[in-house]
């Protein structure tokens, strides 16, 4: 970056994170599609084992969620919240550590070197630089927002919470390195799930904070991020994140009250559901009129997916029902519904919000044909994808017969629909990403030529 205009230089790190995140998503979905077909046709690309495609998919798409959230945070703090980033240089370090570690992780997967833990399937040492980069990010974030003189809007709380819980999830995910933990299966599985509660909690805080930020900006209603209700929902979310994770281990023989507590805590999400229904009409009316057509539309999709996923989550959090759904594709449906339907839609809204702010002359307030097409294709495909996973899960959960092979055969038609809709889902998202990447690249190349200030 050659620009000596401080203002222009500062926001670019956010855009770089966004661009990297979009590339990770595009690649991650590709491996997901390959994995989906390998599930059905074991001969498909046998050289690239499923043990490789699965972690490639999972790590890349999780990176997308984190990278796009982080990119948004860097960008919003500086350009929208008008705070001065504590250390732009540290932000650059953060970015490059992430790039280098990410490439090392991908290389390990291709080479077949695994750490073999769910979600963190890469060799454990590679967590050290990731941990380091989060320390850099955390210090930079808190040093920046503590400069703010006014009371924090709820998204500052949420972003900060997301960063803190990332450290918790990471620390807990590696407790297995200590024999005390790994040599007790119950402890090992329980702590692992506790850690994943903090993992999804962490990214949800980052993403939902972003959603509230974008929604409050496009509706031009800062109250959205400062109302009692906003903080109330934040604390409810935090409470769930801390104590609700044990709904994943109803059948692991840990202390029973941990699991009963999780059941009770999970049910408090009914409040969120009620609130959504209550607000539904109001939220529709308040954003629609505005100039951010693309961002609005993705937030709208996220709203609907939140509703659907919450209903599913509540149902499968009842232990008696969880008995049938745990360890089936219903869990996958829930995970895909929330990571794609909710998180990805919100983050795409954020990306388009940023683009519109940065390139007002290039993007119209309405939506381009291309984005509209991709958006529709992605959401319709996701609906089919979601339903086929639910049906496959029901087939597995209620299967009465003997062998695993027969069960898999009986749900094969659903898995086939799942794999095919995965392809169209990927294509839909690719179309959207293509359009967004082109614009982000345009903005970044203007900045690197120092031409931006002159042109706008």
């Amino acid at each position, binding site marked *: 970056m050659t620009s000596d205009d401080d203002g222009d230089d500062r926001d670019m790190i956010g855009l770089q994170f966004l661009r990297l995140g979009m590339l990770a998503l595009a690649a991650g979905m590709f491996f997901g599609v390959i994995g989906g077909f390998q599930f059905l046709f074991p001969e498909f690309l046998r050289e690239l084992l499923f043990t490789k495609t699965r972690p490639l998919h999972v790590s890349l798409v999780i990176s997308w969620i984190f990278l796009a959230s982080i990119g948004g945070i860097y960008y919003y703090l500086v350009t929208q919240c008008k705070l001065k980033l504590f250390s732009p240089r540290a932000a650059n370090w953060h970015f490059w550590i992430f790039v280098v570690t990410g490439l090392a992780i991908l290389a390990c997967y291709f080479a077949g070197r695994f750490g073999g833990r*769910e979600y963190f399937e890469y060799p454990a040492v590679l967590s050290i630089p990731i941990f380091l980069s989060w320390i850099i990010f955390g210090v930079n974030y808190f040093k920046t927002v503590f400069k703010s003189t006014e009371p924090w809007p709820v998204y500052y709380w949420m972003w900060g919470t997301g960063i803190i819980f990332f450290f918790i999830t990471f620390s807990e995910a590696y407790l297995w390195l200590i024999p005390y933990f790994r040599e007790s299966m*119950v402890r090992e*599985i329980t702590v692992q799930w506790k850690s994943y509660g903090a993992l999804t909690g962490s990214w949800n805080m980052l993403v939902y904070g972003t959603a509230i930020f974008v929604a409050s900006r496009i509706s031009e209603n800062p109250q959205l991020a400062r109302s009692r209700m906003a903080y109330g929902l934040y*604390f409810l979310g935090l409470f769930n994140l801390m104590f609700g994770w044990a709904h994943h281990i109803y*059948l692991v023989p840990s202390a029973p009250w941990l*699991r009963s507590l999780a059941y009770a805590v999970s049910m408090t999400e009914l409040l969120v559901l009620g609130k959504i229904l209550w607000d539904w009409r109001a939220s529709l009316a308040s954003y629609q009129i505005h100039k951010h057509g693309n961002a609005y539309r993705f937030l709208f999709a996220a709203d609907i997916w939140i509703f659907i996923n919450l209903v599913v989550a509540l149902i499968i959090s009842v232990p008696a029902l969880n008995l049938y759904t745990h360890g089936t594709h219903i869990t996958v449906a829930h995970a895909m519904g929330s990571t794609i339907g909710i998180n990805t839609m919100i983050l795409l809204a954020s990306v388009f919000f940023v683009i519109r702010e940065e390139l007002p002359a290039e993007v119209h307030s309405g939506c381009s044909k291309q984005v509209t097409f991709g958006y529709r294709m992605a959401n319709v495909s996701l609906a089919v994808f979601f339903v086929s996973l639910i049906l496959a899960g029901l087939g597995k959960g209620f299967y009465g017969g003997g062998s695993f092979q027969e069960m898999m055969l009986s749900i094969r038609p659903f898995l086939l629909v799942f794999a095919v809709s995965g392809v169209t889902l990927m294509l839909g998202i690719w179309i959207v990403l293509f359009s967004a990447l082109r614009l982000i690249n345009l903005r970044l190349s203007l900045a690197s030529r120092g031409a931006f200030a002159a042109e706008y």
Partner: protein
Amino acid sequence: MNRRAIFMTLCAAFIPYSVYVYTQGTEASHIRAMSEEARYGQQLFQEFNCIACHQFYGLGGYMGPDLTNVVSSRGSAYARAFLMSGTQRMPNFNLNESELDAMVAYLEFVDTTGRYPADDYQINWYGTVVQSDE
């Protein structure tokens, strides 16, 4: 309303809760301690990334079956046979004798830690599940 106070209270509750989860909360009635051999098996299980296709207590990938109780439901010899030859879907990892022994020892160890899926349980009126061995 003091937001900082609420945040601190939640965190203050989370710390002892976490410590409890790490200690008594997971102090399960282990039938036996993990042997050296089983420990080696656990390490291999991670190195070969078996979790991409298999689960323990429902955690893991879904291409293959859950392995928590494969030993008591099918037997060690059966599990060993799968590992020795692979199948059309499961790759053959070309494990040597001692690796096979270790892997089976690990599966045997896991088998003693609980039942998954539950086979003998009761459901309470408010929807919780109690297994017979709890």
